């Protein structure tokens, strides 16, 4: 069942040689393509920006998966709700970027509260946690539609509509901005985990809860903190999605699908894998949309998943996942 397996004894992850070689080959392919065709380059950059969003939401899923061993189905809806909060703040007169940072704080509190109120009471049962996150999905959807209605709404564009020209290639400022913000938030999160005591505590709580609590880590609060940080990442993804899809209650549902796929592609345990998986999927989707006639809008999702499943058949634990070895 959904992660019912006992905790793995090892969570260190890293790419194996064939995977790294494959990724290098993909990079070379993209670089050659960009040098040859300007349309290819444009689609690649747009795909990178889209993929960065998938990557940050995928990272949020991975954060929660490492701590709680479940996929949070409500992650996308939480991101959507916090984006509506940012919208409300700009209505009240804040500038986009002020609203952005205030929203991150609110999202953090939101994530912590969700974990403490809804997840903690059921965290001993995996299936119960899954159903609770599905319930949260429906609940948040309903609350947002009730408060703001289902119709499209528009926020001030954070990056403007300018384009940069690089030779014959046109790059939109929005794509570049989205890419930078997403990369920056991932790097900050990585630094938090790598260099701070709280980050160390969170890693310990996720890896060995019992041992961590014996050395004085407050495991429950570390889990709540993880949910808070995941909600912050989701909020970033939501606010970076808004300029391209605009505000509507369903805006994050396809993004969640791709993020789920990205997290699994990366191996679920690996934050780097999730980010790379997100970018790969974003670029792949944009390129097949451009070059494969068969892949019309209806079939894009099935094709993406079919490719993903083929990858998983070859590597059942994702690109950066470790083979689970368990004592029986």
């Amino acid at each position, binding site marked *: 069942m959904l992660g019912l397996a006992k905790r793995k004894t090892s969570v260190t992850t890293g790419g194996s040689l064939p995977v790294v070689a494959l990724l290098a080959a993909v990079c070379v392919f993209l670089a050659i393509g960009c040098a040859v065709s300007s349309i290819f380059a444009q689609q690649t950059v747009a795909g990178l920006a889209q993929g960065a969003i998938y990557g940050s939401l995928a990272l949020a899923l991975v954060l929660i998966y490492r701590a709680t061993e479940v996929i949070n189905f409500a992650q996308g809806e939480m991101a959507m709700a916090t984006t509506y909060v940012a919208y409300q703040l700009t209505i009240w007169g804040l500038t986009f970027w002020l609203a952005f940072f205030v929203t991150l704080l609110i999202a953090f509190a939101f994530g912590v509260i969700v974990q403490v109120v809804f997840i903690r009471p059921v965290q001993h049962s995996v299936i119960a946690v899954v159903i609770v996150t599905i319930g949260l999905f429906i609940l948040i959807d309903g609350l947002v539609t*009730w408060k703001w209605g289902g119709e499209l709404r528009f926020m001030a564009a954070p990056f403007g509509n300018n384009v940069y020209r690089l030779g014959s290639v046109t790059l939109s400022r929005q794509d570049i901005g989205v890419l930078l913000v997403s990369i920056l938030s991932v790097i900050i999160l990585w630094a938090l985990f790598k260099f701070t005591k709280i980050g160390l505590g969170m890693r310990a709580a996720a890896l060995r809860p019992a041992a961590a609590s014996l050395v004085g880590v407050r495991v429950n609060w570390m889990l709540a903190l993880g949910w808070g940080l995941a909600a912050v990442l989701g909020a970033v993804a939501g606010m970076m999605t808004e300029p391209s899809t605009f505000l509507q209650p369903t805006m994050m549902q396809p993004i969640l*699908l791709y993020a789920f796929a990205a997290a699994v592609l990366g191996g679920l345990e690996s934050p780097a894998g999730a980010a790379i998986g997100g970018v790969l999927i974003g670029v792949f989707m944009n390129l097949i949309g451009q070059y494969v006639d068969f892949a019309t809008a209806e079939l894009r999702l099935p094709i993406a998943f079919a490719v993903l499943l083929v990858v998983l058949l070859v590597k059942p634990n994702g690109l950066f996942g470790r083979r689970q070895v368990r004592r029986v």
Partner: protein
Amino acid sequence: MRHLPVRQLLVIGVAAVVLALLPFQLSGYHQTLAARVALYFVAILGLNILTGYSGQISIGHGAFMAIGGYTTVLLSIHQDLNLILTLPVSFAVAFAAGILVGIPALRFSGVYLALATFALAVSVPQFPLKFSTFLGGSNGLRTTVTPSYLWLYGVSWACAAASFVLAWLLLRGRIGRAFRAIRDSEVAAASSGVALPIYKTLAFGVSAAYAGVAGSLLVLVTNGYAQPGLFGILVSLQILIGAAVAGLGSLRGVLVGALFIALLPTVAADVPVIGSTHGQDVVFGLIVILVMILLPNGFVGLLSGLERWFKTAIKSDPKTS
């Protein structure tokens, strides 16, 4: 296990009598509502065989329901087949689809299987949009005849009863033991001579076949229309919610789970607190969360908890000891 389970038979007998008499007390609207309960009963039963008994998760049963539903409509349109006869065909087609999905699914487990089935649930409703000349696009297709309310009630509960008996027969013997052994430990099961690939694929096939019949019934209940929107991801999630509320790994709670997901949305719509059409989702979501917090093992967990309490209460009674 060999003696006759008198108590269970009694419960089932009473339920059968109530179900047979009920339609004459109900309006047409409530008869279709009851038919909905029956079709969710079938679907939850199927998911329970897969997830509760053989330990494989699926968030994609809406896909098999879509396959069943479209099978019924296509047979009705092109072959002018009697609607009842389309149900066994749906069963067979969905069974085959389940086997086809179950074979690659052997490579996956846990969250990976969840993603694979999720992908299926998202992908299948896209096909009617792509091949709209044959499958009707987003408007969907409609059966040539629309059954009456009483017909719907009778047929869906007959299906529910048949699938319950079939599941019971399947799960009480060798196959059920193999399923449970696989769920509890694949390695131990394989060492005891259980052929993992065969039984895991079989579980997928049977479960999908149940979902296929439920999908056919769902199409018939919604005036004979098969539309992609009818089989969206929500229906897969609803069935999962129903199975969790019922409790996994036992057949005793299935009816409660079916009642929960069939009736709660309509009940939630009547709650006046929020006073808007969107209040329904808020109430539904809240109740789902509350139920899972209060009963993390579903209705079955509540039942066995009560039984345990009852037994200890009798034991501690000085008169009986």
